[in-house]
Every structure is written in structure tokens, then in C-alpha cells.
């Protein structure tokens, strides 16, 4: 017996119940997802140090403490430096890699592809450790630069998958037509290929930036004297719970929201109106 065989009145009631259960379920899931974030934001304004419910009052004390925390601010700028550099590097290496995978046949292509895409499912700790071993073996000291190289390597997978997927939708005949009409390979890349993968490159770049900014496992093993923001937060956590962490967290949430908006705006203009 299916629902369709019930009298219409019953059907409508069942449909309503079903709809309601779905909505409750979705609400619960979203609540589960956003509760911790809400707690984080709320308690960054909590007057007391404890995390008990209910809150004891509102204060900006923790934010003020942050502003005067020079280590934190330095770590923040370090993170920006690392994220920008790593993103640039991973795009410069990743875009040609995606083009090579799409258009060129060469010996060892299969191995190359597997290696590049490995870090997507591979725990960051393995990438971190293996690169630590490399740097130590060649006598390279750990620093922000080693972190940058580590990030760029781990993030290649992100760029390659995005750009490759987009490239698949760009017919090879476009490049052939460009060359046929007199353009050189370089001109073709800048005048034809790049404009057609622009959204994927931008999207991948933004994603890479965000992931680099928040990166921990690889950074953990490759950090020298200078800390990135996550490393600084990590070290503060080891010393115990402090409300300042909530404040930092809230600021990062705010920054993430801004980034999401920026990326949506940037990508919206170039989008195919049909989609």
C-alpha cells in the first residue's frame, strides 16, 4: 500500500507531518552546526572568565586585551604573509599542472596526477613530516618560508582539481583556433585560455588562501621561530582556556564572513547568467 492509495484528507495530513519532520531535522542539523560558533561569539563578550550558563554580563575586555597583544598581532601578519605567498605559489605551479593534465600526454602522467591529488585525502601530518624530513636532510632551517613551501605543496591539489574541472569544459579547439589565427602559445594562454578559466582560478585562489590561513598539521611541523596565527592560538590553548581565545575566534568568524561575501561577489559577475 502506498500513500497514494489513502484518502486525500489523510494524504494531506501525512504530507504536512512529513514536511514538518524534515524541517525539524534540518533545523536540528543547522543548530548543531552553528551552536558552537554562536557560543564562541557570545562568550567572547562574557564578563567573567568562566564558561558557565548563563552569561554573567557583557564586556569588551577580551578584545581590548587582544589589541594590546603584540605576539598575536605579529602572528596575524605572519599568517597573511604566508597565505598570500603560498596562494601565489600554488597558483603559479597549479594552473600549468592542471593544463598539463588536461592537454599533454607525457610519461609518468599517472604517477604525477596521483602525487598531486594525494594531499586531498592524505592527513596533513604526513605531508608535514615528510617535508620536515626533507628540509632537515638538506640542512634548511625551519622558518615562515618553509611553511609557505609546505602550504603551497599541500594546496596544489585544491587548485588542480578546480582548474582541471573547468578546463574540461573549455574545448581544445579554442586554443587551436587562436594559434590558427596567428597567436603564439603564450598569447593563446593569456588571451584565450586564462579568461575562460578565470572563475576557477579565482575560486581556487580564495579557497587556497582560506585553507592556508587556517592550516595546522603541515604548519605544526614546519614552523621555525615565527608563528602563524593558528600556531599562536594552539600554544595559547595548551596553557589553558582563556576568553581571549573566544575573542580571536569571533574575529576570525567575522573575517570568514567577509571573505565569503567577497568571493560570492567576485564570482557572481563572471558567472554564466543561465546558471
Amino acid at each position: 500500500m502506498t500513500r497514494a492509495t489513502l484518502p486525500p484528507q489523510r494524504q494531506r495530513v501525512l504530507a504536512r507531518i512529513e514536511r514538518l519532520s524534515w524541517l525539524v531535522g534540518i533545523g536540528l542539523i543547522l543548530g548543531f552546526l552553528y551552536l558552537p560558533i554562536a557560543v564562541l561569539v557570545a562568550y567572547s563578550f562574557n564578563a567573567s572568565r568562566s564558561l558557565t550558563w548563563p552569561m554573567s554580563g557583557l564586556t569588551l575586555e577580551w578584545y581590548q586585551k587582544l589589541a594590546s597583544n603584540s605576539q598575536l598581532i605579529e602572528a596575524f601578519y605572519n599568517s597573511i604573509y604566508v597565505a598570500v605567498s603560498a596562494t601565489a605559489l600554488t597558483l603559479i605551479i597549479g594552473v600549468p599542472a592542471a593544463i598539463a593534465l588536461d592537454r599533454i600526454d607525457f610519461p609518468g602522467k599517472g604517477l604525477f596526477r596521483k602525487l598531486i591529488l594525494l594531499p586531498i585525502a592524505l592527513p596533513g601530518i604526513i605531508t608535514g613530516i615528510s617535508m620536515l624530513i626533507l628540509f632537515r636532510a638538506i640542512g634548511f632551517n625551519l622558518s615562515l618560508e618553509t611553511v609557505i613551501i609546505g602550504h603551497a605543496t599541500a594546496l596544489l591539489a585544491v587548485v588542480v582539481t578546480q582548474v582541471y574541472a573547468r578546463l574540461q569544459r573549455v574545448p581544445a579547439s579554442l586554443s587551436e583556433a587562436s594559434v590558427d589565427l596567428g597567436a603564439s602559445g603564450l598569447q593563446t594562454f593569456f588571451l584565450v585560455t586564462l579568461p575562460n578559466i578565470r572563475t576557477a582560478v579565482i575560486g581556487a585562489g580564495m579557497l587556497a588562501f582560506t585553507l592556508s590561513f587556517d592550516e595546522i598539521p603541515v604548519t605544526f611541523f614546519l614552523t621555525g621561530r615565527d608563528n602563524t596565527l593558528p600556531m599562536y592560538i594552539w600554544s595559547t590553548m595548551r596553557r589553558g582556556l582563556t576568553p581571549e581565545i573566544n575573542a580571536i575566534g569571533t574575529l576570525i568568524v567575522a573575517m570568514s564572513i567577509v571573505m565569503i561575501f567577497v568571493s560570492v561577489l567576485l564570482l557572481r559577475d563572471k558567472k554564466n547568467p543561465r546558471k
Partner: protein
Amino acid sequence: MSTSRLVRLTRAAVLSPPLLWTFVFMFVPYAILFVYSFWVQKYPTFVPDFQFGNYIQIATDPQYLNVILRTLKIAFFVSLGAALIAYPYAYFLVFKVKRPGVRMALYMAVVAPLWVSYLLRAYTWKTILGTTGILNSFLMSAGILSEPSSVFLYNQTAMIVTLIYVFIPFMVMPIYAVLEKIPHNLTEASGDLGVGRFRTFFKVTLPLSIPGIVAGFTMTFCLSFGDFIAPFLVGGPDGLMVANVIASQFGASLNWPLGSALAIVMLMIVLTIITISDRFERLGQGKFA
């Protein structure tokens, strides 16, 4: 310039940087890691050798074996839990939401938390579940508990909850992608042929969505398997996972060879899982085609 020369030069220019980079920063490190796993610790450093001692230690010493098994178990439950929550969400989005604007918004709503720091999202569970935390004080003020309970935090359950929380978006994305691709007329045709909605789901929708489930499950499993942050924050003494053990080998214990061997073991496990899931995915696709 001739076609072949132009083509060859272009190819070289495009290929060299990525190939070089991959070789130096991925292939070589893994190779050295592999080599180190056969070396021997000689406090305070380590020396070249060729012995399987590290691997034997891992296989026989219950300390290491237990950690590996525990980590596998936790990774499995995390993936299962995330899948059980993510699938209905994705299903709802694809099949029950009519307006594309609402669907987009709900999709972004589940993906947005990924943009917020992972460390902080794991950390908040520490604050929520602790004895001075929100859950306890809420339960006390509601009269359910008379004093704070330490049962919520610093155990494997806390880790599993935390990791499920972190990985739900990772699960939703591939399942959503695969459900979206199912042509609408398939489910319509099934209904048209008189098949009830439950059976349509089990016979049509679910089988077709397997590639997405497998992809999400694999990624979640492998990433949980290698996580060391959640155990550190909410795991407690019996919540140690493989990654923590490896990290300590490269830290205080200064036993790089053993750490390398453990890392290789982890690498092998992850590669095996990826290979198995690849086969699964191809099976699923074969049925569809």
C-alpha cells in the same frame, strides 16, 4: 618556428615547474621518509641502517597496535555518523526544496562553517562539554544534574562528536553533487510505474548516490584517521590517536625512524582505503552507465 618545435617548447615550459616541484617536494620527501623508517634511533639522534625493527615494534607492541586499531575505529564511527547526518540534509536539499535560492542558501549554510577556523570549531566543543562548560551548567540550571559531570569530555565519544561536527560539510558536498545529477525523470518514472516512495529511494536514488557517499566517506575517514587536534583538545588519556603518537616521535621522543615507520604505516592504510574506494566508485558508475 616549426609546429613540433613550438609544441615541444611550450610543453616543456608548461610541464617543468609542476613536475619539478612535485618531484622535489612530494616524491623526494616520501622517499626519504621511507628510507628513514629503516634507520635506528641512537639517542639523541638517529643513524642510517637497514632493519625492520621499527615495523616489528609497531606490529607487536600492543601500545602501537592498540592505538592504530582505536584510530581506525574512531575514524569509522566519525564517517558513519557524518554520513547519517549529511545524507538526509543533502537529500532534503535536492529533492524537497523547490526554490533554487533557498537551496543555494541552505547549501552555503552547511558549507560556511568550513571557512571558520578548524582549530576553533574543535575548541568550542571543549568549552561546551567541560565541567565548567555550557552543557553542564545548562543541565544543572534545568535541574537534571545536581553537580557537573565529567563524563562529557576527555573521552572517545567527545572526540567522535567533535570530528563528526567538523566533517559534516565534507560529507554533504559530494553527496549533494551526486544526488543533483540524478535525472528527475528517473524518480518520476519509478513513481509512474507504481513503485512506492520508500522503495523508489532504496532501488533508484540510493544506489545512484553511492559514488558520492563513497567519496565523502573516504575523505572523512582518511582525514579523521590522521587527525591529532581533536584528540589533543577533547580526547583525554585514552583518546590518543596514531597522529599524536607520530607527532611525539618527532617531538620529545626524538625517534624519527620510529615516527617515519608509523607514518609509512599510516600512509599505506590511507592509500589502501583510497584504492578500495576508487574501485567502489567505479563499480557504482558502471551500474549507472
